[in-house]
């Protein structure tokens, strides 16, 4: 699928709604193994994203992706801000040469990994992105696969981010950034579904 600025807007509005609905849940997930702010951080950031898209009405995809990135970067803060922000910034850069969603998402994964230095298995959002993006590229992404990837973070020992300070004690908890990333891809599936 080629991403357009209109599709991007639908996707982001949907993601915003999911985050808003799950704000407290995400912060609760961040409490035992983090500092309890992930839901608030993401809700603040996504509100800014949808507001920016609505008021600035970006003319093209690159401008739209940049706007999403800048809103996230300047409103989320902490670790999630630069990570989500980088993902969309890399997509914006890539969109100068292609609008193919799978290529954009691949650039995003690379950006997240480079920004945060996390690898698969470190119990971060990378554990969702790295699993989900190739499935999406292959046209095989389903809700179940997203849920599986999210769920898989539960048994991991955190190696990056705040949860890593807990070492073994991080086992048994879902990673909040992985859960919010799951919502992002759920929203994408829904957006794509609407288009079909």
């Amino acid at each position, binding site marked *: 699928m080629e991403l357009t600025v209109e599709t991007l807007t639908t996707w982001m509005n949907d993601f915003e709604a999911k985050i808003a609905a799950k704000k407290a849940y995400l912060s609760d997930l961040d409490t035992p193994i983090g*500092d309890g*702010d992930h839901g608030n951080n993401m809700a603040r950031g996504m509100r800014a994203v949808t507001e920016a898209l609505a008021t600035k009405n970006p003319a093209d995809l690159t401008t739209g992706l940049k706007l999403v990135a800048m809103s996230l970067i*300047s409103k989320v*803060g902490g*670790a999630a801000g630069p990570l989500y*922000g980088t993902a969309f910034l890399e997509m914006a850069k890539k969109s100068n040469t292609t609008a193919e969603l799978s290529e954009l998402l691949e650039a995003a994964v690379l950006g997240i990994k480079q*920004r945060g230095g996390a690898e698969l298995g470190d119990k971060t959002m990378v554990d969702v992105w790295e699993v989900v993006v190739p499935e999406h590229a292959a046209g095989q992404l389903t809700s179940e696969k997203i849920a599986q990837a999210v769920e898989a973070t539960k048994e991991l020992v955190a190696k990056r*981010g705040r949860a*890593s300070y807990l*070492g073994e004690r991080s086992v048994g908890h879902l990673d909040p950034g992985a859960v919010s990333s799951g919502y992002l891809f759920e929203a994408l599936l829904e957006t794509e579904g609407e288009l079909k």
Partner: protein
Amino acid sequence: MKKIMNDPSNVVSEMVAGLVSAYPTYLTQLPETTAVVRADRASMQGKVGLVSGGGSGHEPAHAGFVGDGMLSAAVCGQVFTSPTPDQIYEAIKASDTGAGVFLIIKNYSGDVMNFEMAKDMAELDDIKVSSIVVDDDIAVENSLYTQGKRGVAGTVLMHKILGAAADQGANLAEIEALAKEVMPHLKTLGVALSAATVPEVGKPGFELADDEIEYGVGIHSEPGYRREKLQPSKELVAEMLTKLDEALQFDATKKYAVLINGMGATPLMEQYIFSNDVFNWLKAKDITPVFSKVGNYMTSLEMAGISLTVLELADEKWLEYLNYQVDTIAW
């Protein structure tokens, strides 16, 4: 939670407003940010700019160290939360007078990523930027942490040394080289008697019993390495200096600087008593620090506790830099 404040979600903006109102000759707030820059911009002319910052709640760090001979600007994030890159970027722009800007970053994933992004943004503006990631806390060396060591009170000595060098005209490459030389000689260890309460959270980061302390706690209530019964000051000092000795290999032929840092709620009386035990312990090893400071420099809101930083002065110049004249609110 018993705090002097208004709305918990406005603490940072009200704090910065109160700070610049009280100290207009030292600090100017950058428009639409919670970053502050030297009021006396002329003092930065032609020199490398130094920008630090991080989550709020560590006052007087970092804004209290902005001023002639020390930092150019400081960025105040939300409480215990890294500031966003756009704010850091504004601070970098305000600090650049053509000689480039050096960032002093504490080793937390959020801080490192946000500062790096700001650096990327500034470089697009052709501002030369380089940085050091301070990781002086030896508490977590042997643990499972893979984020690396945390940046804590030693950061203040880094600010001071680099600030003096910048004021004396060192260029960006020299500042970076200096920071890299200093870093391995700078070590800190803390102990907490009680935890801090983030206003928006409303309850302490952890609970200690009335007779319990925790060795190695971080400045955001990160877990330490051992929980124990409260010890006399002498024994706290022995435990902490023994660990610092392991890290630095104390040597009576070398020179040392010491920073005894209150975490927020611990009165100076206790800090001075602790200081006495530190000097006595070191004296028994034939060491008399050639530079020392005692007080609240890198706090953790109302946490009670003390951290002890030792810097081995591997270069004579570092002592000159520590003693170099400075005009800030809090040094």
